[in-house]
């Protein structure tokens, strides 16, 4: 028996609530602030009453950009630039692939992508170790 045999409409709560269009204005405001004073911001999508349809609507409206960063850390995370440059759709998954948190970030580059100087330091140390092994 497959899921289709169960007389339940899949994708419950699949109607639009009208909450998504309001978010577009908020994102625009965040982008303006990013341009004016370089201030980054994030919107926690799980903290908002959005149906899956709302999210799909928002994702579709924002469109796809040119950059897609995949982060492998305790499950996969994707940081995708949307069709609006500077607006990033950030999805964190856990090891089992379930979405644990989802954000819309406004930044030139999301903080998570940049390497921390300390980590660069360990990277350098590791590289020096490799070089010293050469001789």
């Amino acid at each position: 028996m497959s899921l289709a045999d169960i007389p339940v409409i899949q994708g419950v709560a699949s109607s639009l609530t009208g909450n998504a269009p309001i978010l577009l204005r908020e994102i625009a405001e965040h982008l303006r602030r990013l341009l004016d004073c370089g201030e980054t911001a994030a919107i926690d999508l799980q903290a908002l009453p959005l149906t899956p349809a709302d999210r799909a609507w928002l994702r579709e409206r924002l469109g796809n950009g040119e950059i897609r960063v995949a982060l492998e850390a305790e499950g996969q995370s994707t940081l995708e630039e949307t069709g609006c440059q500077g607006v990033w759709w950030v999805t964190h998954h856990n090891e089992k692939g379930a979405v644990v948190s989802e954000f819309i970030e406004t930044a030139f580059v999301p903080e998570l992508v940049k390497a921390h100087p300390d980590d660069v330091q360990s990277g350098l140390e590791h590289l020096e170790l490799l070089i010293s092994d050469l001789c």
Partner: protein
Amino acid sequence: MQGPLIDTLARYGVSRRSFLKYCATLASMMALPPSAGRAMAEAMAAAPAAAKRPSVIWLPFQECTGCTESITRSHSPSIEGMIFDMVSLDYQETLMAAAGHQAEEALHNAMKENEGKYLLIVDGSVPLGLDGAYSCIAGKSNLEALKEVAKGAAAIVAMGSCAAYGGIPKANPNPTGAVSVSDVIKDKPIINIPGCPPIPVVMTGVLAHFLTFGSLPEMDKLGRPKAFYGETIHDRCYRRPFYDQGKFAKTFDDEGARKGWCLFELGCKGPVTYNACATVKWNGGTSWPVESGHGCLGCSEPDFWDGGGFYKALSMPADPLKVVAGAVAVGAAAGVAVSFANRAKKSGAKGGHETTTLADLEK
């Protein structure tokens, strides 16, 4: 952002980015603004490394072990497990290898060595009836054990609705005389993590807070961490828009139920239940009661078991109205009695009526 925690994490093979991601998720789950995630990461990372892992003692009383089951299913095992690795769980009957006298010895050693510093976690309620004979461990009643272990604790975590508010054992008629931890212990900081069972990440969140700051997080009036219990299920429910539109499922299998409409009329206690299920969800973010089509039972609220029935809408009477017939009868009787009295008065007035005489007019 650097500090001992980051080094510890690195030793466990957890990268800085993983930690940042975890903090962002934890902040989202704690219903904090996204900026708080970074602040938390910095605060936690900067916390001084403890020379010795803090001791944790976990006492089980009148409970079903569901809370332990829940905690052992934290959704991000490596980082949250790491937070558990940062403590020394010295006594936990279900998880520990030792049993009998050895287990008791471990408990007493931990109490002696960490006097005044250990964290006490309690799950289950404390029965007071029959001098506490309803639940005993190693010949000691739960009441005795709690008082003894609580004495040297730095703080107490009441895990689950039973320890926090008495829970199901306290449900009417409460045969064992069950009470909550805070009913017994008055002189220690106590934090309640109610829920039946509580959400795992709430536990790790509170533990993370205790480890970082050495204190319990900010609490609400009912002793719950505000971060997780600050808003109602209803306010954060993805079905909330349907409530506002007046679209309700009337039965569990009607058109509305299939379309995912609001479950208020089917008895959902979301509007009066403070918990994080709507955002954190269960089973690694798979789903949660309302998403699976069942209303909220209100399990993180005191006396949720006696809240007037799980399938009765909040606006419905908690008990069937018993007095209707009696009230109507008494009202009718009173009405009839008063009307007889009125008639008697009227006929009295009529009987006392005198004809006006000439003498009266001349007065």
